[in-house]
């Protein structure tokens, strides 16, 4: 009998071998309660105008490329290359001041022309003028199947692929010392106007497999991959992973939601997360020895004339694809990322290191006469207080960047919970962060969250509080005091 249970439960939990009878019990529980089919109930799918059409164009080659150290949270760069230095794609530009192993490499071959510094000489942006043709540093081919964990780790570190691995707690680049309990990959995004990974990863199965096999050697746990139940993900045929099908409204595609449902982070544990397109870059590195940071980005948003997909590179000028598609208006917000979590960039700025979506929406810097009391049909609301978006659940909206109200203290309760699927109390968590109560933050589950998990609560916030910033500050404080 026990053997049968063991056999039945084995594929779900390799941990069973280590934990004996307790492991059997757990595996049984997992197989019964933790179905591989996960349905998210709470949340909100925001439907916006300007979805990228599923055609792929190559963006013109960018003249300059930029790396912003602010994309790598809490990393202080120590420069290796000086202004005027020549680099190949894959050459280290800087490493982390606190950890020499953690290297950041050039996405392109060319000449480092400018290191822009801000207050206290903090490096804000490193600009590289690109050569007409790329030359790559050769790291050598490394077969993930036959290589040891140490060799893989060393290769990822020296090639600058390590920064693609994020960790929780603290939502920062993974610690190079600690082994993760599990690794999580969300193979789709449910964010508004997001990149459809099923489309942008098409034909990349080989690279994905190489990266996943390599990663699976770096943990005793599993590599969990969450795919959209209704999609046709290239991950579906891959091995060395545990596949979960996810359905439900946004944030079903957020890796944080999936971690919370599959195996929440406990105190003292570390899990890694990797984004799917980053896996492709890792895989290509292992298979060819080249660091080739190509991106298939979705250019979307209501202000883009022909929203579609572009093949480009990390750090490219946004203008290369923005003006290829054309913008409808001057007064727009260009966001490197999706509308919920992205960073504002200038139209002349550069694509962020991790972003695979660029969204352009109208700026909302105008007053609205009696905007707080008149009936509203053209904006999204989660209430029905003379707001009528509940009547048209399938309508696509053209939202701008107006806050639709001023910053206030927390007043309304219960509306965050409606869009927050994680098993914790969002408002209490935010308040704990605001008063910097470390014990309370830990008790409420701070180790499990990243700022992006609070993007929807921020979206629906009646008091217009900056939730993601509050959580980020809370995580930083914890990292400083505890981590």
């Amino acid at each position: 009998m026990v053997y049968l249970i063991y056999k039945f439960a084995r594929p779900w939990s390799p941990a069973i071998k280590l934990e004996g009878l307790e492991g059997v019990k757990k595996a049984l529980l997992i197989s019964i309660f933790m179905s591989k089919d996960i349905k998210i109930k709470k949340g909100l799918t925001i439907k916006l105008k300007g979805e990228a059409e599923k055609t792929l164009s190559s963006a013109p080659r960018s003249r300059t490329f930029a790396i912003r150290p602010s994309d790598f949270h809490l990393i202080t760069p120590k420069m290796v290359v000086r202004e005027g230095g020549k680099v190949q794609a894959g050459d280290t530009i800087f490493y982390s001041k606190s950890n020499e192993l953690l290297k950041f490499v050039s996405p392109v071959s060319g000449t480092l022309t400018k290191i822009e510094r801000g207050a206290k000489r903090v490096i804000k942006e490193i600009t590289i003028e690109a050569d007409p043709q790329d030359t790559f540093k050769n790291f050598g081919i490394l077969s993930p199947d036959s290589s040891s964990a140490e060799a893989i780790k060393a290769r990822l570190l020296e090639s600058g692929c390590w920064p693609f691995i994020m960790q929780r707690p603290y939502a920062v680049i993974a610690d190079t010392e600690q082994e993760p309990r599990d690794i999580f990959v969300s193979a789709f995004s449910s964010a508004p106007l997001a990149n459809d990974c099923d489309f942008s990863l098409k034909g990349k199965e080989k690279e994905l497999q190489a990266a996943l096999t390599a990663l699976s050697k770096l943990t005793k746990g599993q590599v969990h991959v969450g795919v959209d139940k209704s999609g046709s993900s290239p991950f579906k045929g891959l091995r060395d992973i545990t596949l979960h099908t996810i359905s439900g409204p946004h944030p079903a595609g957020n890796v944080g939601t999936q971690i919370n449902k599959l195996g929440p982070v406990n105190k003292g544990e570390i899990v890694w997360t990797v984004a799917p397109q980053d896996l492709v870059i890792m895989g290509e590195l292992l298979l060819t020895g080249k660091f080739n940071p190509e991106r298939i980005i979705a250019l979307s948003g209501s202000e883009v004339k022909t929203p579609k997909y572009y093949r480009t590179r990390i750090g490219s000028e946004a203008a290369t694809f923005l003006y290829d598609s054309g913008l409808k208006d001057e007064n727009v917000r260009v966001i490197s990322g999706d509308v919920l979590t992205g960073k504002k960039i200038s139209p002349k700025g550069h694509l962020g290191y991790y972003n695979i979506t660029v969204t352009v929406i109208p700026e909302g810097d105008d007053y609205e006469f009696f905007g707080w009391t008149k009936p509203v049909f053209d904006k999204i609301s989660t209430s029905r207080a003379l707001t009528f978006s509940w009547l048209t659940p399938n309508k696509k909206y053209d939202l701008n960047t107006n806050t639709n109200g001023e910053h206030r203290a927390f007043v309304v309760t219960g509306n965050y919970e409606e869009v927050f699927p994680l098993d914790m109390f969002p408002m209490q968590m935010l308040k704990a962060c605001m008063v910097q109560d470390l014990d309370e933050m830990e008790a409420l589950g701070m180790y499990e969250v990243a700022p992006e998990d609070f993007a929807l609560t921020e979206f629906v916030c009646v008091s217009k509080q900056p939730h993601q910033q509050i959580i980020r500050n809370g995580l930083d404080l914890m990292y400083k005091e505890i981590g």
Partner: protein
Amino acid sequence: MGLKQNLHKLKEKYAGTKMAPAFNALHTFLYTPNETTHSGSHVRVVDDLKRTMNTVIMALIPCLIFGIFNAGYQHYAAIDNTLRLDPLGNFFTWDNFMLGAWKVLPLVIVSYVVGLGVEFIFAIIKKHEVEEGYLVTGMLVPLIVPIDIPLWMLTVAVIFGVVIGKEVFGGTGMNILNPALTIRAFLFFAYPTWMSGDKVWVEGAQAMAGQPDAISGETILGTLAANGHPVYSLWDMFWGFIPGSVGETSTFLILLGALFLIFTKIGSWRIMLSAVIGAIAMGLIFNGVVNAGWIENGSKFYGLMNETWWHHLIIGGLAFGIVYMATDPVTASQTNKGKWIYGFFIGFISIMIRVFNPAYPEGVMLAILLMNVFAPTIDHYVVQGNVRKRLKRLKVKTA
């Protein structure tokens, strides 16, 4: 848009000065500001605090209008009892409206002018924006006081309520007690003769006391507390043609308001429903006590205890309190589970106070204030449940 530009220029001019919060409060009343997001979520829902508060006010307007007519109606009906034979026919009359408006509108104006005045002063001193909390409080206050309350008393009470009930805690969103009920409780304990008895609920009763043509109007709870029999029919109670505080008499309109608040998702249905369940539970218990013969006919509790359980829902301020005051999100429990517990005890304790305190036979005010105090404790234990789950998970892992 000349006005828009001019106001924008004025805003730039006032920016950073002491008067900026006061100016902005007026400006944002006319125009939703041109503020944009900077990071995090670049788009936001249309709902803001002004809209939320405005929705509650909309739900209160029918009660206010009814209260105005009822003030006149109760006065004339007390003089000429025959009017009560056809309440509906004699209710929506010009005379009733004029008398009611003459008495009620000053209450509304005093409440808003004094309350918002205090808010503006605090906003200027503490250099923060004027928050919208008082918009609802200011409408609630005139609806929960007796019609004849002198305006100076109201002024004193509003200042007390806003300063001690809210601003000392840090303003809107930070207060422990419901400000409107703090104001009423202040009146209740400071000037009890103006807040209870049989002389305060009908316009002119106090002034004409002792004269040959004296009128009086006892509330139903007052009658029951004295073991009397109310002269009003159940339908009168439901529609609201009865004496009471200005805006709380019509259970029907309160019910409509409740449905509106629940539909718009502004009011918590959990609190409303559980409070009704709590009130029914206590009513049934008291009915059971009477049926078991534990309370004698002559007991001072008999009248109220013997009242059929569901009658409690349509008399007194219970319904108004449950729908408009218990649901104040700041002072209520903030967790969904906590709301059930919080609401239940409001209903339960309201009826308990009602029965056991015949001198001041309405318990909903004190019940809500009491539960306001306990709300953070309830939330604490609800949140601890989640925390314990997390700790247990950790224990299983490390064991």
